[in-house]
């Protein structure tokens, strides 16, 4: 899920605007440091009192407190989902602290205490030492000042009327917009983890693009102001008004550690008539050590609503991290002629488990959806593609194309495909293609006989396999993603 990198000015960022802002980012160092003001931490446990306390500390409007409480009451009635092909010990929700200081003192004291494998990866990605500390969760006294960067960025956006801020700020400054749209795509009752998120989310991103406006730059959490530790229950809301366009980048290629094992984010996208939202993610949370210990559980609900005619929502994701990934970015194609897209690369190795896919719900006429899913499993990695394509009775002329490819490396990993297709309108056109392949010894030998090292050969073949998805990513992001994939799969062969 989204790696909050706003306080990491030279991180290998998930941003195409990176180069153009590099200069500003670097100059940010000159402005010295700011020390985070310690805020208090609520003791572990969850009840209505805790939710009221969270809402109060954030100074939220009353409607928000009520909304959270309603979500909590419903969540209490919900069973934990058991249908996904993932295995983990039960989670003790009373052992989690739901509101905590932005910085923790109980993390590793220095890089010496951090998993050397993680440090090696940082080194390969070329991440500076100070950032390595921040990413690894080492308690640092000074945080680089990113305010100047973010401010410059925001001024530019303000000129065209784009609102880009934390959801806490949005609740203060634009409560009417939050109230109108929050939970309108993913209701609190949607699923167990979305319910929990609705009750206790602490922060996240808010984007509003006004009518007929093309957002002048790729938006990224990287440039968002004051977002350190938005933490485990993140909430993102993006609204694209009529005829507008926005591209949002989430995540960071550097593996991020977090002492919070459970992450349950909710992302809601709303595209009105003729609007387009492009949402790209690189997820590289800590997958745990070689036995899978300490890795992140990533249970995310992401959904986009193509509410207006001719609107378009496109999800692109590269998932390489986390011990467990449970994630199905979906599109509701409500408007006539609306378009939904899902492009995904998921890598599981070591003991990682991923159950991921998408849902395309066709409600409007002549709606179209495309699903391209590329799964790569190595070592003991377990992976399932789970996808639903539903064509409602009124969705005349709907079309879907699904392509699901799995690539296996070694013989201890597994890949499953669970495509669900429900068609209630006879005019629908559905295509489903699925392949499973292995990197063959012949392919590796061929590459090696041309002078390429085995690992380079694997990375080349894997990147070739993922090409259709990488093509959908913004340029710099794609380059980062390729590099990340190569590093992820080092040592995965043989």
């Amino acid at each position: 899920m989204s790696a909050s990198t706003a306080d990491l000015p030279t991180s290998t960022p998930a941003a195409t605007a990176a180069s153009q802002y590099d200069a500003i980012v670097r100059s940010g160092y000159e402005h010295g440091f700011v020390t985070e003001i310690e805020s208090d931490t609520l003791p572990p446990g969850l009840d209505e009192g805790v939710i009221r306390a969270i809402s109060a500390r954030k100074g939220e409007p009353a409607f928000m407190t009520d909304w959270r409480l309603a979500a909590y009451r419903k969540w209490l009635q919900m069973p934990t989902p058991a249908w996904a092909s993932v295995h983990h010990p039960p989670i003790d929700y009373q052992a989690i602290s739901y509101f905590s200081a932005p910085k923790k003192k109980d993390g590793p004291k220095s890089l010496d205490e951090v998993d050397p494998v993680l440090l090696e990866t940082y080194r390969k990605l070329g991440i500076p030492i100070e950032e390595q500390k921040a990413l690894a969760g080492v308690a640092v006294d000074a945080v680089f000042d990113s305010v100047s960067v973010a401010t410059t960025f925001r001024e530019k956006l303000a000129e065209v009327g784009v609102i880009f801020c934390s959801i806490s700020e949005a609740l203060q400054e634009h409560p009417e917009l939050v109230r109108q749209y929050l939970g309108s795509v993913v209701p609190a009752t949607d699923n167990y983890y979305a319910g929990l998120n609705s009750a206790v989310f602490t922060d996240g991103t808010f984007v509003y693009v006004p009518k007929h406006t093309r957002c002048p730059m790729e938006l990224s959490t990287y440039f968002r102001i004051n977002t350190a530790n938005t933490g485990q229950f993140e909430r993102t809301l993006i609204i694209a008004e009529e005829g507008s366009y926005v591209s949002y980048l989430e995540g960071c290629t550097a593996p991020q550690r977090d002492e919070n094992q459970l992450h349950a984010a909710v992302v809601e996208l709303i595209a009105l008539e003729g609007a387009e939202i492009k949402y790209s993610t690189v997820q590289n949370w800590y997958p745990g050590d070689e036995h899978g210990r300490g890795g992140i559980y990533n249970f995310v609900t992401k959904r986009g609503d193509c509410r207006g005619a001719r609107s378009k929502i496109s999800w692109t994701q590269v998932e390489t991290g986390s011990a467990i990934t449970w994630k199905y970015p979906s599109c509701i194609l409500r408007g006539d002629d609306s378009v939904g897209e899902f492009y995904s690369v998921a890598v599981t190795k070591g003991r990682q488990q991923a159950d991921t896919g998408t849902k395309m719900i066709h409600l409007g006429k002549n709606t179209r959806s495309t699903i391209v899913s590329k799964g790569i499993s190595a070592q003991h990695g377990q992976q399932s593609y789970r996808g639903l394509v539903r064509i409602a009775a009124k969705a005349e002329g709907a079309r879907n194309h699904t392509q699901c490819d799995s690539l296996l490396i070694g013989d201890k990993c597994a890949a499953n495909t669970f495509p669900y297709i429900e068609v209630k309108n006879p005019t629908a056109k559905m295509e489903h293609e699925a392949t499973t392949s292995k990197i063959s010894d012949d392919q590796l030998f061929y590459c090696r006989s041309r002078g390429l090292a085995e690992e380079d050969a694997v990375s080349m073949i894997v990147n070739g396999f993922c090409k259709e998805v990488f093509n959908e990513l913004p340029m710099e992001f794609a380059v980062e993603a390729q590099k990340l994939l190569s590093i992820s799969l080092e040592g995965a062969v043989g």
Partner: protein
Amino acid sequence: MLSVKGLRANVGENEILTGLDLEVGPGEVHAIMGPNGSGKSTFAHVLSGREGYEVTSGSVQFDGHDLLELEPEERARLGLFLAFQYPVELPGVNNTYFLKAALNAIRKSRGESELDAVSFMRLMKERLKVLHLDDSLLKRPVNFGFSGGEKKRNEIFQMAMLEPRLAILDETDSGLDIDALRIVADGVNALRDPARSMIVVTHYQRLLDYIEPDHVHVLARGRIIRSGGKELALELEERGYGWIDEVAA
């Protein structure tokens, strides 16, 4: 350049090479001919370092290196090149990108600077011209969806780009019609060079009408039973391989 002495190799329980000797000097083109199952492809694979073959005795020296000790990529970086009988498809891997990565891996191992995109494109254009090939194959994934002739042409083009010191052509003529054969042979001839040796492995004499060898060897039951000049190939063409069994027995 290449010195093979008493080479014996097994595939599983079966001994395929039974004491093969071969000396190849700089710039020489050697043809190795023989019936099916005589060990031609095994020999090519053992030289290039493919897994699945167990060398039980003998030695292979290449430019002073003990070739059998090296990994396939190390052999390639020393200047060994195998043109495959069945070139392997790499879906999604762009042909140009593949070649550039391979060439730069080789250059890097030799302490040379890596070629940038512009220099590489220039080199590529130049080599295409030498081989009279067009650039239509370069934008496609490596061998993916190529016809048999296209695959073989691509092998020759790779050879032109990687500039090996010893090229082994494993049944490059198999599956080619006469036009494709001529294109491939012309390519090989264009790459003949006093510093580059070649071993042309073939079943038929046909290829040798176009690629004229300095030496011809007959391989049977895993060893070379007769060597001679190019006239030996013609003799094989006339007499077939039937007589060999008597000699080899």
